[in-house]
């Protein structure tokens, strides 16, 4: 049955349907629909809802419930996610599975409450201290928000790793018809490491402290091996209109929705525009972007930031073709026309300029 929900509500309900029974949050716009929804739904399913005293407390409550073997989640928006970084580093260092939802808003500092994609670096490069990665999933619709939240819990449990859902104010507050199709859980490893009271077994210890020389390096090698395995098996992206494309757009989340419109409009061009939409931002879809870079004239990365993901695109391309960037910041959202104008600017081809002129006249 289709329902009309905001992305925030869809994330909350999907978490509950995925078996999350421990939610800890702190109010911050634009993710408030999520915490409000959880305060109603968690008691209905016998779960725990706590409005924590801070984002720091919330992420540490998640740490506790994850260590105890529960499916736990927290959500926030950019400034609040900054506060959670300490906890996320500890979660990664203690190999605890959990889900963190970031409904991004503008920054730096208090910024504003409108949609932004300026937390990309923080999300995919670690964010906290130490060599670690969180798996980062980027939905571009309310439906995909729900679908990715299910997957986030499974991925977290599969790899004993925190998973971040990187949305933005538009994805979080937009209402769209969607459906919950709860999938049966895959064969996930048993949590025999969890703290339950050491009944009939050796004690379990959850920790990230390795003071004996050499132990920490060994543990880091283990983490890196795990990250390599994740990078090999879990990359996800959507490719649209990429066969024989002249130019490829790379964008995720809200920016990708606008780029899809550009691709659609470009059918009137004699010039072919394709789109690679990363769904996993970490691990990044490096291989497909590299492959595309050998076939196209150039790549244009579109973000609601001053240019963050474009660095990973350039690292994937390694100079095989020019990589351009178009971005808006501080609540600015790129329009399809702006993107087409940018394409006309970077592609020395009259056909694009001609089509652009037509589009502008139609408008």
């Amino acid at each position, binding site marked *: 049955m289709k329902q009309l929900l905001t992305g925030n509500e869809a994330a909350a309900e999907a978490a509950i349907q995925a078996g999350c029974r421990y939610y800890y949050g702190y109010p911050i716009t634009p993710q408030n629909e999520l915490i409000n929804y959880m305060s109603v739904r968690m008691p209905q399913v016998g779960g725990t809802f706590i409005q*924590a005293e801070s984002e720091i407390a919330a992420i540490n*409550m998640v*740490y506790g419930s*994850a260590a*105890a073997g529960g499916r736990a989640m927290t959500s926030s928006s950019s400034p609040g996610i900054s506060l959670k970084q300490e906890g996320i580093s500890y979660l990664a260092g203690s190999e605890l599975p959990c889900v963190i939802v970031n409904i991004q808003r503008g920054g730096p500092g208090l910024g504003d409450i409108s949609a932004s994609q300026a937390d990309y670096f923080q999300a995919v490069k670690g964010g906290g201290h130490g060599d670690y990665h969180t798996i980062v999933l980027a939905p571009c619709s309310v439906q995909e928000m729900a679908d990715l939240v299910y997957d986030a819990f499974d991925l977290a449990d599969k790899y004993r790793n925190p998973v971040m859902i990187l949305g933005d104010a538009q994805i979080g507050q937009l209402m769209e018809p969607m459906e919950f199709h709860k999938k049966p859980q895959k064969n996930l490893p048993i949590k025999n490491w969890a703290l339950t*009271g*050491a009944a009939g077994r050796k004690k379990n210890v959850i920790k990230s402290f390795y*003071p004996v020389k050499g132990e920490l390096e060994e543990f880091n090698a283990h983490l890196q091996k795990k990250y390599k395995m994740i990078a090999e098996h879990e990359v996800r992206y959507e490719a649209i209109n990429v066969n024989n494309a002249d130019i490829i757009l790379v964008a995720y989340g809200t920016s990708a929705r606008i780029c899809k419109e550009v691709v659609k409009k470009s059918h009137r061009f004699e010039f072919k525009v394709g789109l690679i939409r990363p769904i996993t931002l970490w691990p990044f879809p490096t291989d497909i972007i590299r492959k595309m870079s050998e076939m196209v004239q150039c790549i244009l990365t579109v973000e609601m930031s001053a240019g963050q993901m474009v660095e990973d695109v350039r690292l994937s391309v390694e100079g095989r073709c020019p990589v351009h960037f178009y971005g808006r910041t501080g609540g600015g959202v790129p329009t399809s026309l702006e993107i087409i104008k940018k394409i006309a600017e970077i592609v020395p081809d009259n056909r694009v300029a001609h089509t652009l002129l037509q589009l502008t006249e139609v408008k």
Partner: protein
Amino acid sequence: MQSIYEKPKMLIDTATHFCPGCGHGIVMRLIAEIIDEWGIRDKTIGLAPVGCAVLAYNYLDIDMCEAAHGRPPAVATGIKRVHPDRVVFAYQGDGDLAAIGMAEIIHTANRAENITFIFVNNAIYGMTNGQMAPTTLLMQKTATTPSGRDPINYGYPIRICELLAVLEGSSYLERVSVSSPENVRKTKKALEKGFRTQTEKKGFSLIEILSPCPIYWRMDANESMKYIDEEMSSAFPLGVVKDWEN
């Protein structure tokens, strides 16, 4: 021959990293004794803090969890909500609980979480070489109060039990010390009461234990115990501060 004093089974037979004369070993032994005597190894989960007691999980043979500096109350909350029938305790020092983790301990008490907190107050940051703690006594010399703690610049020692007592969510608060065999016995009784507060689901309990740090107090072990009795205990009066049974 009858044995009258033994190493508790829950205390792992290993060398500890504690300095000579440190009080942490006494407190850990008491926790191990209680877990043995109550037969609750199967249902106990402990939290180790950042600071001198971080390696508690190397000494206690029970399920244990580390927490970031100041965060044991939040982590313990997360554990207790998953396992409400287990005995969950957090072991914290004065920097952990009364400085960086003040928000967490107050709000955990305020939610009346059914958890026992063991607060070891030695009025100093031991692991980082002896800086001022929130509980450092007035005029006490530390690495960061080289002329002594002057309240004009550094504020006053914080009395945690009294602070938490005003919250409706706190149920049992007692301050004890490990300065003498008699006080150690009292400490054990207070810890047992704390655990019982939890098993009878009476809510938040905290036992503040005045404990020596001879190395960073620049004293020998005997002087340290005397310092607890004569100086510390007047700034931090021993006794029950709040009790749900009275």
